[in-house]
C-alpha cells in the first residue's frame, strides 16, 4: 500500500520547509523537499553600497545572522582584492567559532535531541542509577545524583503545569524511542544545562560583535573593533581575558558532555547508522584564515566525490578557481524562470519568481538546486569533518577517533568512519566539529593576544571602489555548511548579488537532470513505523540541521496535527 504524507508547517518563518514522502511497506520510496518561502534579499541589494550588504544579508535568517555578515564582507573584499589585517581575521575567526559552538549545542540539545529522547519517560527514571551510569563515562560535576534528582523534580513540576512549551509536540512513547528512562533523564539534565552553556557562547559573540542578535563590528576591509591596551571603551586586554573564562566553561561542556552524549545516544540508535546517507559527494570550505590574503587556513575544506576520501580535492584560498568555477544553480524544478535554458553560474544568477502549484514532476520549491561540476553535493558538519579527515587535519581526526572509540566500547563492536555516512553520523560529526571549533576559538584568542603583544593594533583597511565592473565571491564554513555570496559591483554599486546557502545545497529540489537533492536522497529507505507520526522522517531531516528545525514541528491550525496525511 502506498501512502503519501506531507509535513508542512503553516507559519511564515524564513527557510520554511515542506517535505513530501511516498511510503511503501513501512519505508520511504520517493521524497520531495520544498522551500515554501521566497527569499528575495538579492533584489533588495541591487543598486546599494556594497559596504552595507553584510548588515542587510544578516537579516535573511534569524539563526544564521553572523555567518551571512562574515560571508558578505568576504565577497566584497574578494571583488576588491582587498587584504584584511591579521587582528581582524582573528577577531572574525573567534566570532565565527563562538557562533558555531552556540549553534551546534542549540541544534543538538534543543532542536533535534528530542527526536531521540523521550522526555516523559525520564519521569520514570531512577535518578541514582542515571547518575551512576553517566559517571562511568564522564567526570562532569553536574552528572551527580543530586543534579539528576533535582532535574526530575523540575521536570515533574513543569509537566504538572500543563504548559509543555518546547516539549509540546514531542512523539512521546513512539515505538522508535529506544532510550532507557535513566538515559532519557541524563539527556534532559544536559538539555537544561546546555541552555545555560549556550549563553556563554553567545556572550563571546556579544563582547566581540558589540551587540547580539545582530553583530555590529564588521566592515568591508576588517572589523570596527579598535584595539587598545589602556581604554575601557574599546577591545581591551581585560575584555579578552574575560572571554577566555567563557571559553574554558564551554570547553568543559563540549568535551565532557556533548561528545559523550552523542556517542551514548548514538550507540543505542546504532541502526540509524544504516539510514540517511543520501548524496555522498561532500563539499566544504576551508576557513579560519591566518594571513591577510586568505591563503592559509587552520581548517581545511574541499570536495570528496562518492564518499571516497582518497579522492579529496582541496579548496586552497579565498577566490579559489576550482570552487569559483564549479558552482551552478538550476531552476528546472524551482519556482523561478531564467532568461535562457540550463543552470546558471551565480555571477549570472537571476531571481525571477515564477510560481506554479506543487508539481511532483515539475516545479515544486522556492529553493534553487545547486550543483558542483554538475553533481549534487552534501554540505554541513559531516562534509566538513570528512574533508578535514581526508586532508589529514589532526584535531578533527583525534575527535572522530574519540567518538567512534566510545561508541565501539558501548556497542561492543568496532565502529569505523563509514558509520558517519548516515543520519546519526551527521550528529556525531556536528559534535566533533563543535569540539574542533573550541580548539580554534582558543587558538585564535592566543593568536590575537600574541599579535597585539607585538604592537600590531591594526583592524581595518579602507576599501576603495573602482569605476567599472568587478566581481567576487566569499565563502564560509557555517554551522549548516558551506555558505557563499557572489557579487557583481558596477561603479561602486551592487549590480548582482546571489547567496548560495547551505540549506539550498541540502534541501534543494531535483536538479537539471532530475537528480534528487541531499534531503530527498537521504529519506529513501528511511523506515516509517506510523505514517501518522513520521518521527523517523524528522530524525533524518533534523540531522541536517535545517534552518529553524522547529518549523517542521509546528501544529496544523486546522487539524491540530503536525502532518497532513493522504492515501494515494
Amino acid at each position, binding site marked *: 500500500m502506498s501512502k503519501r504524507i506531507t509535513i508542512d508547517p503553516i507559519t511564515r518563518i524564513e527557510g520554511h520547509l515542506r517535505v513530501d514522502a511516498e511510503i511503501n511497506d513501512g519505508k520511504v520510496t520517493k521524497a520531495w523537499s520544498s522551500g515554501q518561502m521566497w527569499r528575495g534579499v538579492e533584489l533588495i541589494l541591487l543598486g546599494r553600497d556594497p559596504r552595507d550588504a553584510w548588515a542587510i544579508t544578516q537579516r535573511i535568517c*534569524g*539563526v544564521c545572522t553572523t555567518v551571512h555578515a562574515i560571508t558578505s564582507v568576504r565577497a566584497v573584499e574578494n571583488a576588491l582584492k582587498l587584504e584584511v589585517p591579521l587582528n581582524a581575521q582573528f577577531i572574525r575567526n573567534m566570532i565565527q567559532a563562538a557562533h558555531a559552538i552556540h549553534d551546534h549545542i542549540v541544534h543538538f540539545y*534543543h532542536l533535534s535531541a528530542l527526536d531521540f529522547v523521550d522526555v516523559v519517560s525520564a519521569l520514570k527514571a531512577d535518578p541514582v542509577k542515571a547518575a551512576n551510569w553517566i559517571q562511568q563515562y564522564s567526570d562532569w560535576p553536574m552528572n551527580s545524583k543530586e543534579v539528576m534528582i533535582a532535574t526530575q523534580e523540575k521536570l515533574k513540576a513543569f509537566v504538572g503545569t500543563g504548559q509543555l512549551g518546547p516539549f509540546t509536540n514531542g512523539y512521546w512513547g513512539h515505538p522508535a524511542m529506544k532510550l532507557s528512562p535513566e538515559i532519557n533523564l541524563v539527556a534532559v539534565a544536559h538539555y*537544561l544545562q546546555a541552555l545555560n552553556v*549556550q*549563553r556563554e557562547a*553567545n556572550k563571546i559573540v556579544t563582547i566581540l560583535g558589540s551587540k547580539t542578535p545582530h553583530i555590529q563590528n564588521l566592515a568591508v576591509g576588517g572589523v570596527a573593533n579598535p584595539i587598545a591596551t589602556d581604554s575601557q571603551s574599546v577591545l581591551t586586554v581585560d575584555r579578552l581575558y574575560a572571554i577566555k573564562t567563557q571559553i574554558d566553561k564551554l570547553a568543559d561542556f563540549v568535551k565532557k558532555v556533548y561528545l559523550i552524549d552523542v556517542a551514548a545516544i548514538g550507540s543505542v540508535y546504532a541502526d540509524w547508522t544504516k539510514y540517511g546517507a543520501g548524496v555522498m559527494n561532500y563539499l566544504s570550505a576551508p576557513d579560519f584564515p591566518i594571513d591577510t590574503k586568505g591563503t592559509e587556513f587552520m581548517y581545511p575544506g574541499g570536495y570528496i566525490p562518492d564518499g571516497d576520501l582518497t579522492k579529496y580535492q582541496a579548496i586552497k584560498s579565498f577566490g579559489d578557481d576550482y570552487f569559483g568555477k564549479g558552482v551552478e544553480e538550476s531552476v528546472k524544478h524551482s519556482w523561478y524562470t531564467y532568461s535562457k535554458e540550463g543552470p546558471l553560474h551565480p555571477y549570472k544568477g537571476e531571481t525571477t519568481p515564477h510560481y506554479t502549484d506543487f508539481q511532483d514532476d515539475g516545479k515544486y520549491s522556492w529553493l534553487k538546486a545547486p550543483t558542483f561540476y554538475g553533481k549534487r553535493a552534501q554540505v554541513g558538519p559531516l562534509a566538513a569533518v570528512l574533508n578535514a579527515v581526508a586532508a589529514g587535519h589532526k584535531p578533527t581526526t583525534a575527535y572522530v577517533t574519540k567518538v567512534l572509540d566510545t561508541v565501539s566500547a558501548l556497542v561492543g563492536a568496532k565502529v569505523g568512519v563509514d558509520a558517519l555516512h548516515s543520519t546519526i553520523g551527521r550528529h556525531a560529526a556536528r559534535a566533533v566539529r563543535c569540539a574542533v571549533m573550541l580548539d580554534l576559538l582558543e587558538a585564535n584568542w592566543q593568536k590575537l593576544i600574541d599579535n597585539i603583544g607585538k604592537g600590531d593594533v591594526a583592524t581595518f583597511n579602507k576599501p576603495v571602489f573602482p569605476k567599472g565592473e568587478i566581481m567576487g565571491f566569499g565563502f564560509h564554513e557555517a554551522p549548516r555548511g558551506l555558505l557563499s555570496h557572489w557579487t557583481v559591483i558596477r561603479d561602486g554599486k551592487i549590480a548582482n548579488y546571489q547567496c548560495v546557502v547551505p540549506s539550498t545545497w541540502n534541501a534543494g529540489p531535483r536538479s537539471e537532470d532530475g537528480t534528487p537533492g541531499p534531503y530527498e536522497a537521504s529519506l529513501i529507505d528511511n523506515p516509517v513505523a506510523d505514517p501518522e507520526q513520521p518521527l523517523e522522517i524528522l530524525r533524518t531531516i533534523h540531522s541536517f540541521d535545517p534552518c529553524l528545525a522547529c518549523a517542521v514541528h509546528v501544529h496544523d491550525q486546522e487539524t491540530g496535527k503536525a502532518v497532513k496525511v493522504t492515501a494515494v
Partner: protein
Amino acid sequence: MRAVVLGVGNILLSDEGIGVHAVRALAERYVLPPEAEAIDGGTSAMDCLDQLASADLLLIADCVRGGHEPGTLVRLGDGELNAFFRTKISPHQVGLSDVLATLNLHGIAPARTVLIGVEPKSFGLGMEPTPELAARLPAIVEALAEELKAAGLTLVPRAG
C-alpha cells in the same frame, strides 16, 4: 526594576519588521532610563535569551494578524499571551514562545510580559513598512512608552 523592550520581525519584509522599526523609533523619541533596554531582536529570539532572563517586564513589539484593519493596535497581557501563542497569529511565535517557555522551565521567565501588536498590511519585499503602518509608528511608540511609564519608569523626550 529591569524592563526589556523587544522588537521582533524581519526588516526585509516590509510590515513584518514593524516591531523592530517601533523599537528603533522609541529609542529615537525618548531617552530610556538605565533600567530599560531596547533590543532589536530581529527574528533571532533564541539569541535574546540572556537579555530576557529574569526581567521584571518584557515588552514585545510585533505585528499580529487578527483580521483587523491594517495599523490597528492591540495590547495583550500575560493571560492573553498564552492564547496568542496557541493560536499562532504572529509569524515569530515559534522562536519567541519557545524562548519564553524555556525561561519558564528554568524559573527565570520575565515577571510580566506585555505585547503591543499592530495589524500588518503587507509582507512584501522591502526595508520600509508600508505607508499605512509607517503612519502608525508614533502611536506604537506612545503605546510602548505608556507601558514603561505605568511600570514606574521615567522617559525623557529627546529634543526636536
